[in-house]
Every structure is written in C-alpha cells, then in structure tokens.
C-alpha cells in the first residue's frame, strides 16, 4: 500500500516533469542559434549572445538608430547628450558631459550589448569586452554606411524588418531630394566648423558625404583628412557661392563677415556678397553631426539651402 502510493507519486512527478520539459522545449526560440557574430565599423568581429534584451547606448546616434528601427524599448541607458526621440532623455545616463562613459555605470546596467562610437577610448571598449559584455562600435563614414549599420543592429536585436523599413524610408527621402535638384548646376560651398582658423569638412568626412549627396560642391575637396584647416587664401581663390556655419562657432549672424576685422576680405566673397549664408541652430547642427536616421533632415536642409527654387 505504502509502496504503491510512493510509486504513484513518482509516476505523477515524472509525468509532470516531462510535461514541463516538453513545454520548455517548445518555448525555446525556433532557430538553433544562441549567438551571432557581426562585424562593426572598426572591422572587429563581435560575438553577441541572443536574444538581446538590455542595450546601453553610449552615443546619441546609436540611440537614434535603435529607436528608428523599432528597438528603442530595449535601451536601458544612454547619454546626457541624447535629445531624440523625446523619451530617450528619460533613460538613465552612463556617459555624461565629458562624453566618456563610466565603465562601472555601464556594468551596473547589466547590458547584453553596448553601442559606442570612437569617442569612447579603446581602453573602455576592451574593459567591457573583457567582462564579456559585447561592444559594437558604429562610426558611419557616409550615408550608405548608416544603412549597413542599421541592418547590423536590426540583425542583432531581432528587428530586421524594422531596419529594412527604415533604410528604405531614408533611401526614398534622399532619392526624392536628388530628383528635385538634378537639373540645377552645382553650387560651391564652404563648410565652417570653426571660423579662425577655418576648420572645414574634408573629403573623407561624413559631413562632406552629406553635402555631396545634397548636391553641393565642397571647396575643401582637395584637402586631406576628415577635418582639415582651410586657408583664407584658398577661400578667396575658390570664392564659394555659399557658406554653411556650424553651431557653437561664435558666429551668429552676417556681421562676423561684414564688420569683423577681416571684412575687407569677406565682403568680396560671392556667398557674403549675395547673402548666401546658413548658420545652423542646435537641432540643425545635431542633424549634421549625428550620423543616423536624422541624417535625411540634414540632406534636405542643405539641399533646400543650396537650391531654394527646386523646393518651391
């Protein structure tokens, strides 16, 4: 009697346990994959365990890409520089005013994946990798690089369709702009990141890619490096038809050119003579300087400034 009762309990336990086992097996993801290896913009092969549920972003452009592909809800922390979308500012911050993230704070967030740009030093990235926290470094050099980065991000976070949709959206906006401006002759442009000496966006920079995509002819095309200094001589010789000035340069209006101590020089530059000057505000500067989904606004903005007739 006693023995029968024990046997019954054992049978019931075995049945329930195997039931749980079968249930648990069916609940497992269908794919056999439990990890994925992707290559980031530094050419590093990074192995990420799936599924990714907690992501820390160490740069606004990474945050923006996450939200744009529909993976924003996976973010558990970002930076104090984040501003878009509005709810990204509500997350805890791991990278503060100095831009460099605190490894302790990142680890404290127990992330499955960390997103960074090259602003973070390699020591920080190595430290996190040594703690078995995968770090993907995204540093798009041009617009098509944003597409590949978004697709990579989509693959890792399980939002491939969201990434594809966002990339297609960006492509259609840009081709729409390019169709409109196709029939106009190219306007030459000086891009000023700093007025004295004149820091500009060189041919290998992301900004140059945006300018070129928007139909501008960057006068710094023959210089080397991403952010070279262009001499005032060169500016006078090239006589640009348009000038764009970034935010935070201290140049807030035309008077810098027309009544500064170099006004004799600037007064005769075509762009200043014809009032073809665009000075970015904070948002516009962010569009230009944070490669990601908002880059399409930068392209639109530059194209509209260069060819206002095309957008009437």
């Amino acid at each position: 009697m006693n023995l029968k009762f024990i046997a019954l309990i054992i049978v019931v336990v075995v049945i329930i346990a195997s039931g749980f086992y079968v249930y648990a097996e069916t609940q497992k993801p269908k794919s056999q994959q439990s990890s994925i290896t992707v290559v980031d913009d530094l050419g590093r092969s990074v192995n990420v365990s799936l599924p990714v549920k907690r992501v820390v972003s160490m740069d606004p452009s990474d945050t923006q890409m996450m939200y744009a592909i529909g993976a924003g809800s996976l973010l558990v922390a970002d930076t104090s520089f984040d501003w878009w979308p509005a709810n990204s500012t509500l997350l805890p911050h791991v990278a503060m005013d100095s831009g460099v993230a605190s490894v302790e704070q990142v680890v404290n967030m127990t992330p499955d994946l960390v997103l960074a740009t090259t602003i973070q030093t390699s020591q920080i990235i190595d430290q996190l990798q040594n703690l078995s926290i995968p770090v993907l470094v995204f540093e798009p050099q041009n617009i098509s690089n944003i597409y590949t980065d978004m697709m990579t991000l989509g693959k890792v976070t399980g939002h491939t369709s969201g990434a594809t949709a966002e990339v297609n959206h960006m492509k259609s906006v840009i081709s729409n702009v390019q169709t409109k401006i196709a029939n106009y002759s190219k306007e030459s442009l000086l891009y000023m990141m700093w007025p004295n000496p004149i820091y500009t966006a060189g041919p290998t920079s992301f900004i140059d890619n945006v300018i070129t995509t928007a139909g501008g002819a960057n006068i710094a095309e023959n210089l080397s490096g991403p952010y070279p200094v262009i001499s005032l001589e060169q500016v006078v010789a090239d006589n640009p038809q348009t000038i764009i000035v970034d935010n935070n340069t201290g140049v807030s209006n035309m008077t810098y050119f027309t009544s500064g101590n170099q006004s004799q020089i600037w007064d005769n530059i075509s762009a200043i003579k014809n009032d073809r000057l665009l000075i970015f505000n904070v948002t516009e500067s962010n569009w230009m300087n944070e490669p990601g989904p908002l880059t399409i606004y930068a392209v639109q903005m530059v194209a509209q400034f260069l060819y206002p007739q095309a957008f009437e």
Partner: protein
Amino acid sequence: MRFSNYLFTVFLVLLTVFNILVSLSIGPVHIPIQAILKNIYLYAFNKGPDWTITTILFYIRLPRIVLAVIIGMILGVSGLVIQTIFKNPLGDPYLTGVSSGAAVGAAIGFLVSPFLVPVLAFVFAMTAVGISFLISRSDGEVNTEMLILAGVSVSFLFSAVASYIIYLKVANLRGVIFWLLGGLYGATWTDDFWLFLALMVIFPLMVYFRRELDIMLMGDEQAKSLGVNTARVKTVVLLISSLITSLAVSVVGIIGFIGLVSPHIGRKIVGESHRFLVFVAPLIGANILLVSDTIARSTPQGEIPVGIITSFIGAPVLIYLLYRRRKI
C-alpha cells in the same frame, strides 16, 4: 671678432628681408612670381589689380608674414632677457606663468564668446605673472630663485584650471586645441599695428639696458658693486618682457621653443655680450618663426600648428651648434 659680429647682424637683417620676399611667393594658393610683380605694379599705381591676387597677397599673406617677424622678435628678445636674469639656460618667455595664465583666459573665452579670447588671455596672463611676482618679492626686490619656483607653481595651478574648463565645459575642442598650439592664421593689419607699436616701445628699453644685463651676467653682488641697481633692472626688464609676451600670446596663442632657442643660437655665434645679442636673438627668432609659419600654412594637407614646425627647425639648428662648439 667684433667686425664679424657687425657683419652677422647685417646679414641677419638682409636674411629677414629675403625671407619676407620668398614667403610672399609661397602659399596654399600658387601665384607665379610674374603675377605677383604685375599686381604689385597695378596695385601701386591704382590700375585695377586682380581682386583675388591682391587680397591674398596684401590682406592675407603679408600681414601674416609681418606678424611672424614681430612675434619672432618679441619671443626672441624676451627669451634672451629671461635667460640672462635667471641665469638659467632653460629660461623661456613663459617662465613666469604667462602661457598657463593665457590658457585659462582663452578657455574661458571659448566658453563665453570666442571673440573675447585675446582680451581674456591677456588679462589672465598678466594675472598669473602678477601672482608670481607678489610671491617672490622680498625686501622690495624680486628674488629670481623664488620667481622661478613661483612661476612653475603658478603655471601648474593655472594649467589645472585650464584643463578642467577645457575637459568638462568647452564644446568646441578643436578651436581651443589649435589656440593652445599657437598659430598666426588670424593675422590682420590691426594686429600688426598694435604689436609693432608695443615692440617699438619695449625694444629700445631692452637695448638701453644691454650694458646692465652684461654686468649682471657676472652675478648680483658684482653687479651691485659696479653700481648697477639690480633690483630696478630686474623688475623693469622682467615686467616688460612678461607684458609683451602676454600681448604676443593673446594674439597668436602659445608658440613654444622660439624664446628658448633663439638666444642660444645667437650666443653660439656672437658670444655672451648683449651688445650684439640684443639685436641678434630677436632677428633669429623672427627668421625661425617666419620660415616655420610659411611651411605651416603651405602644406598641401591644410594648415598645421606652427609650434610643431618651430621645434622641428629650431632643435636641429641648436644641436648642430652645440656639437660644433664641442669639437672646437
């Protein structure tokens, strides 16, 4: 020896003129010599010169060349008197805290408005110098040994403040870093005018004190026994050299090495006496800075900070002179 010293001084003046002319024909935009001469003629006789070439030559290149000569002279002569008074071969014009003071001013300037940078750099440079002098005053006389230590301490303190502001607060790091490395990119005739005026006030004073400086090379006690008012000479010379260095730094940022190396090169050629040195050191400074700046602004990749070039040219020249002297 004396005759050859005269000759060398004249040679330096001619070299400076030659360098100015050569520099005028070199730049990121290539302008052939014929075009330059033709435009000088058209400009002089008001016959409708080419706007692009005229602007580049007379409003961009020439003011910059003149500025290089003036700043080189200022740094050369300041470095000379600092080395003499401190009896320290490592003395340079920034020893009393000028550069770090200016860096704090510039950092605050970049934070508030980039157009305030020169004014704030000058004010803070003089503040740092003032603090160094106050610390090292004893019995109404500047104690040079204390002044070196005070200068170093004040420099470190101001550098820390500058680094803090730049690291945490300044959004445009590029502007600050380029300023800290120094450069003559912003040269205008207005800058040239004011700095030339300052040089013309201060340089004759240095020439006036050249005999006192010679005597002070023998040591303070001996100088006093020969009737030199060492306290007065020291205070006046140090103050005016700090003042003019601050002015130079406020316009072009911190250009290193010229103030250190020009007096040494001069000494190796014309000897220790200030009779010639007070002319030779600034002229050497002018030529090193002019050549360096011409290279800095003419590289095909875009401008590079001039401080890199000054060290690259000045250091080998000094090493060569030291080596040659040793063999003789």
